[in-house]
């Protein structure tokens, strides 16, 4: 049997990889994908908890989160598209017109 701890650790690792991606990739799209990965990592832990407690609420949460993630994708990509129109790039390293 795979223990809850293992599931959680897997979820955690994925989350952390996503975090590293957000931290390091200056390509906006890859950064964005990393964010999606983080949400998915959380989803995994929801499902794992659901499985280990027998409550299906966790799966409902995943359902809801998936919808949110899709929305996030739409919004995020729209923002990128808009930005690309202005900047001809989605490189976040080029984005510091503000800042001290």
């Amino acid at each position, binding site marked *: 049997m795979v223990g809850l701890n293992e599931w959680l650790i897997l979820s955690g690792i994925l989350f952390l990889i996503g975090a590293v991606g*957000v*931290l*390091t990739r*200056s390509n906006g799209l890859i950064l964005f994908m990393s964010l999606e990965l983080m949400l998915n990592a959380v989803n995994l832990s929801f499902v794992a908890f659901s499985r280990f407690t027998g409550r299906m609420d966790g799966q409902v949460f995943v359902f809801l989160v998936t919808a949110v993630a899709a929305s996030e994708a739409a919004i995020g990509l729209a923002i990128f598209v808009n930005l690309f129109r202005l900047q001809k790039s989605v490189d976040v*390293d080029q*984005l*510091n017109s503000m*800042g*001290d």
Partner: protein
Amino acid sequence: MESGLLWLIPAAPLAAFVVNGSVSLATSRPGRHAPHGLVHAVACLGPGIAFLVSVWTFWQLHGMPEGSRVLTQHVYEWISSGSLQIDVAFRIDPLSGLMLLFVTGVGTLIHIYSTSYMHEERGFARYFTYLNLFMFAMLILVLADSLPLLFVGWEGVGLCSYLLIGYWYDDPEKASAGKKAFVFNRIGDFGVLLAMFLIFWTLSRAGAPSLRFEDIRAHLDAFSPGVATAVCLLLFLGATGKSAQIPLFVWLPDAMAGPTPVSALIHAATMVTAGVYLVARLGFLYALAPMALSIVALVGATTAVVAASIGVAQNDFKKVLAYSTVSQLGYMFVGVGVGAYGAGIFHVFTHAFFKACLFLGSGSVIHALHGEQDIRNMGGLRKVMPVTFWTFLIATLALAGIPPLAGFFSKDAILWEALSRPNVVWPWLPKLLWAMLLLGAFLTAFYMWRLVALAFFGTFRGTKEKLHHAHESPWPMAMPLVVLAACSVIVGFFGVPGFLGGSNAIDHWLEPAFVAEGHTAVAAVAEHAAHSAAAEWGATGVAMLMGLLGIGLGHLLYVRRPELATQLAARFSGLRRVLAAKYYVDEAYDAVVVRPVRMLSDRVLWRIFDVRIIDGIVNLLGGLTKAFSYVFRFFQSGYVQTYVFVVVLGVLVLLWRVK
């Protein structure tokens, strides 16, 4: 006894001050002129009325039984705070009565004199305003029944002195002299203030908080010897300021920058004697502090000699007189310092007349010579200005202590008292005092005769033009001279000592003012050692001899053999220079006090402490805050991933610290 009229004495000059002040202000704008007649009339009327009332009061006082000769008037409550109650209340006893008499008398004369002397001045209304104010303040000083009220007059006369010295304010030196006078007086006032606080504190502890002279006299038991000494020395500090004694004497010669009548009135006859008056007024307190008295006497004697020696080397007509005044004030302090208040005040009294006469005479000369003050440019005025000459001569002889003029009696009284009264603190003091005073007497006679000789004898050394214009002064100037000269002859007879067959009326008159009833300590000091009349005769003779010697030497050097004087001057040129430069006291003050303090204030306190340190800290705090601002802004890089990174760091720290 309550008297309803005392208020009139100060009020009259005050009213004159108000009127003249208004006139002066109203006509101050260019192109306007104050009416001479009105100003003169008002100006003279003020002190005149005061004089008349004073005479009347004096008469009344005289008519009262000895020992209870006190007239009082409570005018209104001035300051009242808790146990402190200071009233505007007047009190005339024999001492203040006497002072009153000659202050108003001489004052009136000098007002009259001034009407002529200041006739050409554009600002004469202002002059009389100040002069009237001075009379008011001086009368308050004399009439006050408490120390604070006396202090009002005390500072008031200082103010007027300041204003009048700086009367010709457009001359920076004159304005500066006024300031100097005020500041030196203030140093003295510092002492007076502290003395008042100490007295009040002492009396508070004794359960009788007050600053009235009567109350102080009634609670002398409250003063321990130490406190009494402290109070007396503090008061004496005030006296040295006002009466130009060492170490605060340097302002008085400079004060000659004022118009000459002012010098006569304020810086010779009245104000400068206020210090003596103060010591005499609180004589019962000084009696508790023999040490303080001895110091007073010693300082007085030293001043007498030092000032006289400086006077020898001065060439400014008025400066000579000024040093003479300082010197004579020293005599007065010796008088009061040895406990002979009567003698001291007697000298104040006589000095007022002959010194005023001398100053007015000098004014007459200066007036005639259109402002010439250097005696080296004078000479032979004897014939041009006979009235001035003769009155001046009389006054000079009086000052030199030639019998039977006024100065003789008073000076002799002091000399004798100084010699004859044993000193409990320093037994050797009487002889030393006597010797110094003799030296002073000799020098006085010498420089005075030098002055007379250079100014009135010989031939005129100034320009022809000046001689041509020189003339005898008009009657408003001449009349006071004559009156004062006459007084210089007469007033001495009020104090003819017993051994000369006199009754020493002044001493008897004044005595009740100095004695605290039933106070043993006072009695102990006041007790005369028994001396034979022969000794008194001898001492008097020596003193008189000194005066004659001085005159003789002066006559020899400046009338008979002027070349000898030149030779002597060349021989002792170093000494001459030191004397002419007043022992470099001014320079010493400048180097030791004025410059360092100014330097300290400017360079250290202001530019370093205030601006650099305090403000520096304030600004540094501001600057540091701003610097931190830039530190934080450095992290606000504008890169989104930096922000994410900081979030992760935040989580990291929270995880590791909180969990």
